């Protein structure tokens, strides 16, 4: 959750404790619902006058600080008690450790409205489910800094993941990686043929490592470009949803037409129609106007940050689009969540030069 947002929303309900967060541009939302059975003891507490349970949000950093070192926690902590004291305005997290040591953390909280992304997996046209390991192995081929990735249902039951580039100019400078998985690697596949969506890889990676660690299969529900994609994990005591906004069709139109999608798959037969002969001949014979005749070299690619930027520190421009974080704009949240945050080309986002290869100290 900390990879997505800066604030942790705690919402106790009768069906369990829900931990949620949203990113600053309102393009990523995640919720973890722990059923009462997950806990040794669970009391949702008395209802408020409005029939709802008390909700609050705390700073992610503060909450994480309590659980700082997992290995040492596992060794020393016997029990953890989480107590919400509305009257004292404190969220108490108490760790009962070995040797009679009790560590009590009092975290300040803010009251808040219900944080809920509007989504309905039933209405999603496509879904697929795979063991987390398969998806983790797929994602590893992409550079860690890659922002957006496109998931596509290709011909012949092939499911592909490809890094997304915003415009044609990038295409001649950036390395394009595409991974094809066969349908039978998935537990269920119900993808609308030719469908594709583009989403931010960063938040997805976070969920993926959780899924891998818990050994749970991951389900992906998506619809048309622009409508959010929902990633879910389910087990007896835990229900997890990650909802990410996707790029709408206008950006998707910049992708090569679907017919060419076929040629992305390595053809078993040799075909030399794409060879360089004619290109070389053209180069040899043409006279270049500029001094250097060498074609534009693959320099470092210029990349604009992921449109669904989730890191608030990096992009001040993002604040203009989403509501100011910290205030309770959750009524606005619902309307902002779909589409409007990701206007084409990300206006107002100044392109930053993001170097994908490590900077050596040399003068190259």
């Amino acid at each position, binding site marked *: 959750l900390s990879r997505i947002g800066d604030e942790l929303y705690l919402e106790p309900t009768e069906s369990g404790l829900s931990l949620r967060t949203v990113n600053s541009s309102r393009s990523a939302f995640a919720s973890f619902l722990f059923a009462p059975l997950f806990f040794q003891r669970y009391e949702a507490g008395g209802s408020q006058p409005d029939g709802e349970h008390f909700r609050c949000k705390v700073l992610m950093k503060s909450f994480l600080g309590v659980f700082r070192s997992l290995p040492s926690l596992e060794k020393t902590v016997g029990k953890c008690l989480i107590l919400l004291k509305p009257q004292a305005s404190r969220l108490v997290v108490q760790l009962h450790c070995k040797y009679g040591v009790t560590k009590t953390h009092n975290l300040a909280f803010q009251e808040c409205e219900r944080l809920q992304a509007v989504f309905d997996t039933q209405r999603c046209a496509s879904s697929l489910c795979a063991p987390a390991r398969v998806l983790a192995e797929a994602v590893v081929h992409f550079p860690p800094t890659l922002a957006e990735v496109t998931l596509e249902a290709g011909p012949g039951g092939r499911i592909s993941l490809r890094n997304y580039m915003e415009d044609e100019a990038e295409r001649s400078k950036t390395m394009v990686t595409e991974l*094809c998985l066969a349908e039978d690697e998935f537990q269920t596949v119900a993808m609308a043929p030719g469908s594709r969506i583009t989403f931010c890889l960063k938040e997805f990676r976070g969920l993926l490592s959780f899924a891998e660690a818990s050994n749970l299969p991951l389900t992906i529900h998506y619809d048309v470009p622009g409508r959010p994609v929902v990633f879910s994990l389910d087990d007896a005591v835990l229900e997890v949803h990650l909802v990410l906004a996707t790029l709408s069709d206008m950006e998707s139109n910049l992708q090569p037409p679907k017919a060419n999608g076929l040629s992305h798959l390595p053809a078993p037969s040799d075909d030399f129609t794409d060879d360089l002969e004619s290109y070389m001949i053209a180069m040899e014979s043409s006279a270049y106007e500029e001094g250097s005749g*060498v074609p534009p070299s*693959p320099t470092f690619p210029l990349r604009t940050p992921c449109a669904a930027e989730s890191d608030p520190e990096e992009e001040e421009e993002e604040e203009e689009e989403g509501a100011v974080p910290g205030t309770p704009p959750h009524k606005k949240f619902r309307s902002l969540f779909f589409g409007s945050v990701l206007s084409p080309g990300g206006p107002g986002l100044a392109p930053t030069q993001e170097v994908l290869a490590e900077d050596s100290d040399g003068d190259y």
Partner: protein
Amino acid sequence: RFRAKIVDPSCLNHFSRVINTIAKLAKTCTLRLTDSKLYFILSDKVANGGVSMWCELCQGNFFDEFQMEGVAAEHNEIYLEVVPENLSRALKTAQSAKAVKIKLTNRHCPCLRISVELPSLSSSSRIVTHDIPVGVIPRRLWNDFREPSVPDFDVSIYLPVLKTMKSVVERMKNLSNSIVIEANLSGEMNLKIETDLVSVTTHFKDLGNPPWASEDGCQSSAQGRDTESMAEARIDIKKLQQLLAGQQVNPTKALCNIVSKRIVHFILLHEDVSLQYFIPALA
């Protein structure tokens, strides 16, 4: 046209390590393909700080299949401008692959297409393709990338164990921007740095001096030279550190040729790869 395939995992691993070494030395370099060899070339432009590199591999030692066709029969070579880091990244996750194919394509723009066939639990393999944009270098520029000749050096000496040399240089790097390499024909080498506050010298002995047969019988600067006298050059320490840090395997032979106050020429030889690296002396 160019297409090649690696099937053997240890060849793949070895090739990846060569690419990783090159990636550490140059952000962009020239890949020259002939029907028997691959070359990674960095020519001594001012942008590189005057450093140049020449790395040569025999394709037969790495590839199970290798076919190339140059521009014309009498110029059966291909010169490409590549970013080795991209190659490195593409190969990084390919280590468990069943096969790796490399092909030169020109769909939207010239690319090296690396297709990795990975094992999977399902009936069909997983295929990962990486399209790496490259620049095709026209024939009229090929002269820029000729093999550098061995300079007329004053001293030639084998390098100390690279790991040791690397850790010495790494520590010195924190103290100074430049380092002096000096060596003589008695197998002694010193690495020296000197700042306002401190000077540090590391002495190496008994390194041995490689025998060089003079090609045309005339005396080189090295012959007739007093064996105790040191030839030295002051070079950018970061460039030296980069060279040493990039080495992933211990070379079979490692030596350097020093042209006093001009240039240091490093030669690192492995079984099937040779790497030459030139670092000019600082003014």
